[in-house]
């Protein structure tokens, strides 16, 4: 079993009456709600948390791309990947990912991912999402009817740019390039492992099966509702005669660990409420632009991730409901161990994308929950799926061949007549 510690990087300071006062956390959220001074603290806290997860032995550190919203503050996850590449040592950098239809030309993604892979010594997981409708259609203006075609073309170009030995010309419908010649090329050969995050578009399953990519189902409905999607995915894999290898499926799950079940509720309930009622407060009109989801996905009855229906389903739910229905796996280490083991077994999932900073959770709480998980849950689940080979994790350079960042030494500046004060660590966090 592999564990990727995933960060959404929410804005933690939305007002209490946010849901009543504003129609959407995404797309047209008022700009004056964002305070860049608090933002400065947040980014640094969040990077600290990811670095901490590396030190606690998690296999991967996850980041993703979203635009114009307070749900996740990473318009460019590659910047986060770059920051992590220098300050983490062992974990994979799971950039999940770049919405490749949005880049013009899309070789920008091939280049930046290659850079991250080279800087990190081959620790990159390359994620290729289509991106949410809010991000792609409403914020970035992509025509819903053609975004999937554009995605497919961008994918073809990026893979070709990574793998082709010679300079080549690319005559696409959306991108035309006379000379494609990637410098640098990725360290992992032929290219970093590709994971495709999806919210439940059924075409994605075929796409992953066809290319041997890992499919990551990112849902906030939890593992019980997620089973329908996982079953659909495995059905497609079985039909194509693929090995039902748990490592070819990733699943995002909210997990919160405390010393006891009661303590978990007391500590985390308000922050989960913040997540579900503020971070996911997306105006229905932005949830699903006409043509964004294909007709077959709509007909399949799979629920859109956000919007009115998703919100109605959550309406009036208490902590107990969230826990009972599997949206959240929370409680003492034993409770979490048992439920999470059961959840991963029921989904046949080998890559857990664990969400431990949710909504307004402050740093010390994130640290506590993460540490408890790493010490008292993770070791017990490690051995799951030991009979399977994980073909979807990066293959970094051996430790002995990897470059290490030089130690930071501000004293050098003093010798030039300047003094640089680093603030003590505990005063840096946003409270």
């Amino acid at each position, binding site marked *: 079993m592999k564990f990727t510690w995933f960060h959404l990087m929410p804005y933690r300071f939305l007002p209490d009456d946010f849901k009543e006062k504003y129609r959407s956390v995404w797309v047209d959220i008022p700009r004056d709600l964002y305070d860049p001074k608090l933002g400065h603290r947040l980014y640094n806290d969040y990077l600290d948390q990811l670095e901490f997860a590396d030190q606690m032995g998690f296999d991967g550190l996850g980041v993703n791309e979203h635009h114009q919203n307070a749900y996740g503050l990473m318009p460019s996850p590659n910047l986060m990947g770059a920051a992590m590449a220098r300050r983490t040592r062992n974990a994979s950098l799971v950039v999940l990912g770049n919405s490749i239809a949005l880049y013009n030309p899309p070789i920008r993604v091939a280049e930046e991912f290659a850079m991250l892979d080279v800087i990190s010594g081959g620790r990159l997981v390359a994620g290729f999402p289509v991106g949410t409708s809010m991000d792609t*259609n*409403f914020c970035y*203006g992509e*025509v*819903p*009817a*053609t975004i999937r075609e554009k995605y497919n073309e961008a994918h073809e170009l990026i893979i070709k740019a990574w793998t082709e030995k010679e300079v080549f010309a690319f005559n696409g419908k959306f991108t035309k390039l006379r000379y494609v010649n990637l410098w640098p090329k990725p360290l992992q050969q032929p290219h970093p492992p590709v994971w495709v995050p999806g919210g439940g578009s059924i075409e994605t399953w075929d796409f992953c099966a066809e290319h041997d990519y890992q499919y990551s189902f990112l849902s906030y409905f939890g593992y019980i509702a997620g089973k329908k999607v996982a079953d659909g995915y495995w059905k497609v894999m079985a039909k194509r005669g693929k090995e039902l290898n748990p490592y070819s499926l990733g699943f995002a799950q909210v997990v919160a660990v405390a010393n006891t079940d009661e303590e978990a509720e007391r500590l985390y309930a308000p922050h989960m409420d913040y997540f579900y009622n503020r971070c996911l407060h997306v*105006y*229905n*009109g*932005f949830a699903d*632009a*006409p*043509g964004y*989801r294909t*007709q077959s996905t*709509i*007909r399949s009855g799979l629920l859109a991730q956000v919007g009115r229906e998703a919100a109605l389903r959550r309406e009036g739910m208490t902590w107990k409901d969230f826990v009972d229905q599997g949206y959240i796996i929370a409680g003492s280490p034993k409770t979490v161990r048992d439920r999470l083991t059961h959840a991963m077994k029921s989904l046949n999932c080998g890559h857990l994308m664990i969400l431990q900073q949710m909504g307004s959770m402050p740093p010390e709480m994130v640290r506590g929950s993460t540490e408890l998980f790493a010490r008292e849950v993770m070791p017990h689940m490690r051995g799951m799926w030991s009979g399977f080979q994980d073909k979807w994790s990066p293959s970094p350079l051996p430790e002995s061949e990897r470059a290490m960042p030089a130690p930071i030494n501000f004293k050098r500046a003093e010798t030039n007549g300047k003094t640089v004060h680093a603030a003590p660590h505990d005063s840096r966090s946003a409270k």
Partner: protein
Amino acid sequence: MKTSHSIGGGRFAVETYEFGSGEPLIFLHGAVGLTGMDPFLDELGKDFKVIAPHLPGYGDSTGGDLIEDVTDAALFVHQFMDDLGIKSSYLMGHSMGGMLAAETAAHDTSRARKLVLVGPAGFWIDEHPIPDFFAMDLSEMGTCLFHDPKSPLAQLFLAIPDDMNQLADMYVERVKRLSMASKFLWPIPDRGLKKRAWRIAAPTLLLWGESDRLIPPVYAGEFTSRIKNARLTTIKEAGHLLPYEQQAAFCKAVRDFLKG
């Protein structure tokens, strides 16, 4: 009467509504398409041979994948007229259809004998942004589309069927139509008509609902300033869906212009 035409050597099957007889009047619908209950077309059928195709990707019309932008759409209109043996005729378009009719008339200046543009799309004025139709729920649409969103007509338009299967079908069809429309209108409907509108030679009538809150009447100036032989008539107590909301005044204005 509903019929189907095979267009472009079978590339498109085009569901077409035809009414009356006389001089052909081709009508291009707006983003939401025809409802199948479009009484102003029957009414105009008393004086003209009204031919109202569902654009590819709408209703039972096929070939939506072959149309990706306004040029493809305008070429489709040319092909449709060619295959129906119509060299030149009255051409009318509503909203998105007005944009496509104007494009068609600009490409080939002999196509339209006379041009009627009803609350047409095709421009963007920073000072008067067009509300985002694609992000609206039904009640917002009501406010944007009708002079009186509380009228029985508006309520009929905005009704949601009780039957779940019917609702699912309606939803899928709506998504299909708006997905086609997004090729011309998303995210901003300016696709270069401002470069081409000067070529339009046909006498042109702009018809606007006085309380059009989707494409406000101020947009008429973009057309009348570029099209040499254009004039504007606004219709009182009408919103963006003026052919439905003020059918009599609308049909009279069209008739007077085309017959005059």
